[in-house]
């Protein structure tokens, strides 16, 4: 029962791809079957919602099929070869992820459903036992709801206070305000690595140092929008928790991870209780399995992990530096072209570093009407609050339109976006 996993293409093909790239095409796109078919009425799919979720390359889809077709079994507990093999492959992905993120401590990599669950794990398993009235947690106004609501739940259960760092005109965090908000009762500081609305890349090294200097607070970084798009090296960061989702980085749905430190995880209660996470069970108590299994209760999303492994292989083959370069170039192009659209206002511009997530409004046209008109042209963008209602309120808008890019997007996508926006302007003139 072989494990034949299709490999991403070789490096000479990659170079060829780079050339076409320079010519404004995007050749990685061909690795994604959804782009090899017309979207609707013969028009191509212009997928600009990768900040929500990304499309999947053939290698990931095949990894899933092959796994279910040829080597499927459960992990950890099998008494037979097939299950041992699966267990090995499962934990190899953990090692791959550690390498991909420069995470020094494999035992502190916990598989979760998604970034959201990873944050909830921290909130419950650390927060319930360690937070009490009078304590505070410092967040930012640009957090995704997934890094707000878990802490509001802890406010409900443990009576803590929440504090929010604001942003400046460019869409960057006010670091001086962060320093002011932290006091001796601050137990955790939670900051997104990259904003899912403004594209802002927050200066994690600086933030990490700042928090460590002025407090004992734990540091949680939300990497959901970062890990897919730029090289991450956790070894260089001061942090306690880093979270991410596979589906935003070419992987399957239903799988994500929490990256932490073993000493910290050892001291925490488990989150979910169930099979695989125990060592010995008595009537009233149990002892927990070693890390990371202590935090992985029940049958895990085995196929999700295997598929994520294939996605990590693909991204590694492409190279995260290239992914970033591609996106930065495309973002520059997009910002330049978008600025030509009459009545456009782009939220967050002039940041020191920003990625390909562009939120905007068009004077007099509601985001939902924009999305409908764009969809008509096969251009898929997002309209709404982007799970960032606090930021919407701060920006003074009920909703924005958002276009977001990934490695399969090219200038042609930007051109189609701009053309469709021009039509929207025309219609609403």
């Amino acid at each position, binding site marked *: 029962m072989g494990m034949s996993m299709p490999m991403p293409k070789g490096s000479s093909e990659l170079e060829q791809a780079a050339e076409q790239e320079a010519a404004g095409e995007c050749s990685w796109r061909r690795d994604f079957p959804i782009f090899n078919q017309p979207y609707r009425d013969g028009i191509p799919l212009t997928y600009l919602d990768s900040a929500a979720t990304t499309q999947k390359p053939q290698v990931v889809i095949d990894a899933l099929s092959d796994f279910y077709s040829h080597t499927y079994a459960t992990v950890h507990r099998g008494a037979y070869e097939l299950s041992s093999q699966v267990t090995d492959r499962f934990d190899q992905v953990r090692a791959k992820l550690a390498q991909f993120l420069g995470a020094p401590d494999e035992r502190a990599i916990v598989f979760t459903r998604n970034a959201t669950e990873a944050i909830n794990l921290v909130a419950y398993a650390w927060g319930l036992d360690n937070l009490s009235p009078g304590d505070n947690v410092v967040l930012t106004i640009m957090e995704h709801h997934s890094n707000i609501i878990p802490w509001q739940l802890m406010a409900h259960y443990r009576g803590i206070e929440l504090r929010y760092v604001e942003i400046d005109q460019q869409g960057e965090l006010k670091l001086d305000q962060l320093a002011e908000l932290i006091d001796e009762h601050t137990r955790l500081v939670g900051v997104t690595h990259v904003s899912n609305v403004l594209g802002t890349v927050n200066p994690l090294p600086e933030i990490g140092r700042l928090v460590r200097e002025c407090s004992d607070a734990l540091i949680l970084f939300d990497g959901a929008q970062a890990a897919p798009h730029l090289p991450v090296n956790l070894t260089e960061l001061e942090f306690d928790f880093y979270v991410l989702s596979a589906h935003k980085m070419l992987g399957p749905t239903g799988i994500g991870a929490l990256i932490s430190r073993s000493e910290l995880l050892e001291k925490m209660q488990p989150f979910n209780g169930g099979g695989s996470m125990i060592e010995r069970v008595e009537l009233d108590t149990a002892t927990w399995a070693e890390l990371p299994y202590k935090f992985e209760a029940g049958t895990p999303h085995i196929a999700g992990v295997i598929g994520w492994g294939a996605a990590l292989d693909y991204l590694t083959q492409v190279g995260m530096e290239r992914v970033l370069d591609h996106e930065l170039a495309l973002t520059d192009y997009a910002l330049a072209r978008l600025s030509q659209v009459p009545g456009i206002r782009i939220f967050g511009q002039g940041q020191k570093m920003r990625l390909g997530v562009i939120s905007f409004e068009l004077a007099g046209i509601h985001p939902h009407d924009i999305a409908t008109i764009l969809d*008509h042209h096969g251009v898929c963008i997002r309209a*709404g609050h982007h799970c960032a209602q606090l930021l919407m309120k701060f920006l003074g808008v009920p*909703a924005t339109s958002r276009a977001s890019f990934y490695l399969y997007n090219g200038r042609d996508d930007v051109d189609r976006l701009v053309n469709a926006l021009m039509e929207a302007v025309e219609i609403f003139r």
Partner: protein
Amino acid sequence: MSLRSLYGNIILDHYKNPRNMGELPEADVVVEARNPLCGDELTLYLKLDDNQRLAEVKFTGVGCAISQASASMMTVAVQGLPKEEAEELIQLFKQMVMGEAELDAEAEARLGDLVSLEGVSQLHNRVKCATLAWNALQEGLEEFARGGSRAELVEKAD
């Protein structure tokens, strides 16, 4: 359905120049309606006369062209209608935008300008925009029948 037929002149006219927009302090019933998925918010003011006719209908709120135009056109269409006829129109309109009815000549006549919203039936994810005001109206009439004066309506995902 072409874009120009969805975002046609009638709809854009009502969107840019909404009729009956504003508060109605002497309203019998006020309904606050919203669609959490879109962020659309609409407040509908109803005044009924002694014969249970809709003497005056006004609205305030923010939303997309479809929801705003639908609200504006609705206020025009139901103004002066007896309660029962308004309720019939609500059903007819909702059937149209949900794609549940073929419109015959009589129905088209009754709907008038509202027929310009028929294209919404092709856009699954915009139907709620078109129906928000109408659901608010329905809620308001029911609240009135119950003797109340304020109602709240939160659209559900389906």
